[in-house]
Structure formats: structure tokens, C-alpha cells
């Protein structure tokens, strides 16, 4: 690797192939979707620590508690029938467990009914699309459970979310729109039934952030912090959720950026990396880290990457904290690399750092799949990876090279 600090030379060193290889490992079967607190998450962490140590970083991990992480511990068996016969629903496509469901491992069978119209006792109640779960709960005494409509992705998969409300008193299943329509129609016509279980437990676990310091900052020098979350929503029994775009891509970009920047960053600039756990349960890893940074009196410039899978149009940028100067440099980097940028939501760890008062930008460049089995490595666009890595390298290089007193053309407040 050259030690040149010329930006053009650095950008030439960015390797999409290397990032594709990283994503293949992070999305592989043994890592099992990298849910916080899982063995797959620990395996990902061990591999990432090795990668960062290999570029000469001082590495460590920092643990934090995470409570009540929802986990489907068995593929639910759900069958329904009516006048036209019996149908067993396919877990992940036609049926999934609502994150607000009670844990009921045993199959409950009951007649189908419509919430608000039928006697709830003993029935699985279909919740019409225009009725909220809140309203559905008004009269559910003795009900077997609730059946809620949920859209699916372009490949017909349910989305998995780990962050959400605490469990309610009833089993709740989500149905894809076609199944929901069929079940609602059957419930209205009577003589129909459903039998199903909701094996969903909540585990208290330990999350662990990965920290790597490549260069200590000097007084008045830029202190760069590159971040990406490495956790995913995790596999379900019989269903892989590889988490390729979300967010193996962001991790791959950060690793590639530090490989390029570490030997070449201008003198005086600090460079650290935080690969974060627990983003999918509410950005808890970054919340933990941000509070540590505040306590230490640090003032990093944070660049967070979440989703670098498939760029369509402009890269979304969300900023928080005193980030005017960082945005100006990101703009300059975008113009230099030819990558279009647009203000847009990046609901990720950058919000924790911005909320804690640090200059923070979140960068999002799209996902080929999201929280479902469709989030596979083959949907990640190598050209997008290369573009986002070059953007990060250029922004970091310009930030490190620019005098700290440089006035921002977009109105820094000092």
C-alpha cells in the first residue's frame, strides 16, 4: 500500500472487490444475521476485530446491556380453513409474528371473527386494514389472538423489526395482504377457523461495540470518527436474514476507508472507528458510545454509514449537532468525486451522536433489501460501494487537511 497523501492517489486505492468480500463474510450463514447478543454477532465481532488489528489499529470492545430483544424461537405453525379447504401458511411470507405479540408456544385453535363485530371469546379476530391495533384491543376479552395486515416487500417477504412496543396480552400474527383479504372474507362468511402459535420470547443480552484507534488526535487537529453498525435483525428458525445491505455495506465501507486513510492521513488528524452493536434495537450502541464521549470531553466529527447497497439518484445525508463545517467538506468531497448528495433521512446511529452535541452526518445510499431474506449480497452494487467509500475517504481527507479555523461557506457558528 502506498503512503501517498495525494487525494487522487487515495481514491485510486479504493477496492470494491475488497468490500464485496467483506460483505460476503458478514452476510454468511455462520454469522446468522448478527443479532445483538447472538453467537453470530460475536463471530462477526471477532472477525472485525482481526480486520482492524490488521491495519494497525489499537482495538477494544465495550459492552452494554440490552433488554428484551425479541426472538422468534420456533417457526410458527399457522393453519386456517373454511368452506374451501385448509391452508398452512408459509412463515416469513404469508404469516409472521407481530413484535407486540404475547409469547404463546402452544397452538391455539379458534373460529375466525372480525374485530368489533363478533364475540371475541375463543376467536382469532381479524383486524380490518382501516382499524388500528389500538382500536382492535377495545374488546378482545377471551380472544384467541389478533390477525393484522402487513405489507410485504417486492419479493413477498415480511419485514422484521426488533425495535418496537412491549408485548401485549394477546398473540398477534401479521398476514400478507392477500392472505389477510382471504381470511377476512372467510371470517365474514363464517364457518372458518385458524390455529396458530406465537413463539416469541424476549431475551436480556449484552451488546458490544468495537472501537479502533488508528491515530490519536492532537490539540486543534480534526478528530475523525467513522462509524457503522454491524448488527442485524438476525435469522429466524428456517429463515436467513443476511443483513447484506443493512449494514454489512456500511461496515465494509468504513473498513475500506480506514485501510486507505490510515497510512496517509495528514499529520495532526485523529482517526478512530466505532463499529456499533444494537442499532436494530434502537441505536443503543451509539447511545452508549455517545455518552462515553461526552463524559470524556471528546469532540469528534462523526461520519456514519448505514446502507451503501444500491445508489439511485443522490446519496441521502442527514446531519446533527454543529455539523455545518462537516457538511461543507462533505459537499466539497461530493463535488470532487462526482457523487450527488441530497438532504434526506438517515435514521441511524448518527442521530445519537448529533443528539449528544457532536458534529455528525449520516450517509445512506440505498439498500437492495431491508430486514428480510431479500437483503442478500448479490443485491449489493459494487459501484455504489466504491462511490460511498471514495466519498468517505475524500471527506475525511479534506477534513483532516483543512485548517480548523477555516470558515465554512455554509455558515458555521463558532
Amino acid at each position, binding site marked *: 500500500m502506498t503512503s501517498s497523501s495525494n487525494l487522487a492517489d487515495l481514491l485510486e486505492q479504493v477496492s470494491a472487490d475488497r468490500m464485496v468480500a467483506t460483505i460476503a463474510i458478514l452476510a454468511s450463514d455462520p454469522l446468522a444475521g448478527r443479532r445483538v447478543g447472538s453467537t453470530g454477532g460475536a463471530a462477526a465481532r471477532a472477525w472485525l476485530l482481526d480486520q482492524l488489528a490488521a491495519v494497525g489499529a489499537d482495538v477494544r470492545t465495550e459492552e452494554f446491556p440490552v433488554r428484551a430483544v425479541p426472538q422468534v424461537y420456533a417457526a410458527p405453525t399457522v393453519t386456517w380453513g373454511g368452506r374451501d379447504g385448509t391452508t398452512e401458511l408459509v412463515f416469513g411470507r404469508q404469516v409472521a409474528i407481530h413484535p407486540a405479540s404475547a409469547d404463546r408456544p402452544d397452538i391455539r385453535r379458534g373460529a375466525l371473527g372480525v374485530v368489533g363485530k363478533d364475540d371475541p371469546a375463543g376467536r382469532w379476530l381479524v383486524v380490518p386494514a382501516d382499524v388500528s391495533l389500538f382500536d382492535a384491543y377495545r374488546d378482545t376479552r377471551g380472544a384467541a389472538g389478533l390477525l393484522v395486515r402487513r405489507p410485504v416487500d417486492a419479493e413477498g417477504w415480511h419485514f422484521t423489526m426488533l425495535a418496537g412496543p*412491549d408485548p401485549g396480552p394477546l398473540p398477534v400474527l401479521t398476514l400478507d395482504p392477500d392472505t389477510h383479504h382471504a381470511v377476512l372474507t372467510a371470517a365474514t362468511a363464517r364457518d372458518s377457523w385458524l390455529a396458530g402459535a406465537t413463539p416469541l420470547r424476549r431475551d436480556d443480552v449484552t451488546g458490544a461495540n468495537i472501537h479502533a484507534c488508528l491515530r490519536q488526535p492532537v490539540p486543534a487537529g480534526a478528530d475523525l470518527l467513522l462509524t457503522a453498525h454491524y448488527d442485524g435483525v438476525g435469522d429466524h428458525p428456517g429463515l436467513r436474514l443476511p443483513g447484506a445491505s443493512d449494514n454489512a455495506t456500511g461496515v465494509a465501507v468504513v473498513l475500506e476507508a480506514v485501510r486507505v486513510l490510515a497510512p496517509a492521513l495528514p499529520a495532526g488528524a485523529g482517526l478512530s472507528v466505532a463499529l456499533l452493536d444494537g442499532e436494530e434495537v*434502537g441505536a443503543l450502541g451509539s447511545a452508549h458510545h455517545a455518552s462515553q464521549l461526552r463524559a470524556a470531553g471528546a469532540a469528534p466529527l462523526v461520519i456514519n454509514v448505514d*446502507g451503501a447497497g444500491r445508489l439511485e439518484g443522490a446519496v441521502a445525508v442527514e446531519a446533527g449537532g454543529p455539523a*455545518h463545517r462537516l457538511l461543507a467538506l462533505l459537499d466539497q468531497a*461530493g463535488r470532487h468525486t462526482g457523487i450527488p*448528495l441530497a438532504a434526506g433521512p438517515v435514521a441511524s446511529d448518527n*442521530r445519537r451522536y448529533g443528539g449528544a452535541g457532536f458534529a455528525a452526518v449520516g450517509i445512506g445510499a440505498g439498500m437492495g433489501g431491508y430486514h428480510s431474506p431479500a437483503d442478500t449480497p448479490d443485491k449489493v452494487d459494487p459501484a455504489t460501494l466504491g462511490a460511498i467509500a471514495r466519498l468517505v475517504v475524500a471527506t475525511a481527507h479534506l477534513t483532516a487537511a483543512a485548517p480548523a479555523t477555516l470558515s465554512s461557506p455554509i455558515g458555521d457558528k463558532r
Partner: protein
Amino acid sequence: MSQNTPTAGGFTGDPAAALQITGSGACCGSPAQAVGGILPPAGATASGDPCCGTRRAARAADSCCGTEARADAIAAGQGCCS
């Protein structure tokens, strides 16, 4: 070294608009961004709400989606979006 090569890149519009995104600085706010037609249309599902279910339902379940509960969640370092 030229680092200001004119290209089609950079922000279209005011970069400072990135500081005005709804949800900035909070743990709950903007939903995950729909990309590549993968996510359902806004309003059709939870993509219009960072928490699962409706806000009223989540509030009833004592989650962090209610205004007061959300403030408590932020203060406690908890979160509810991904």
C-alpha cells in the same frame, strides 16, 4: 493538488438542509428511507412510523412511541427506531 474539480456531484441545494431533517437529534423520528422500491409505500405500513403498529397502539402498550414515553426513552438512553 486540485480538490475542487467541478463535477455533477455535491449537494443539490443548501447542504444545511441536512440539519433540518425531521427526527434529527431524536431516537424516534424519520422512518427508514424507502429505497429501490423495497419498502412499502409510506402510510401503508409501519414504514410511516418508526415503531411497530400505530402510535396509539404503541402508546397503549407503554412503548416509547408516545410523546411522554419517547421523552423518557431518550432520557433513559433507550430507543425505538432502527
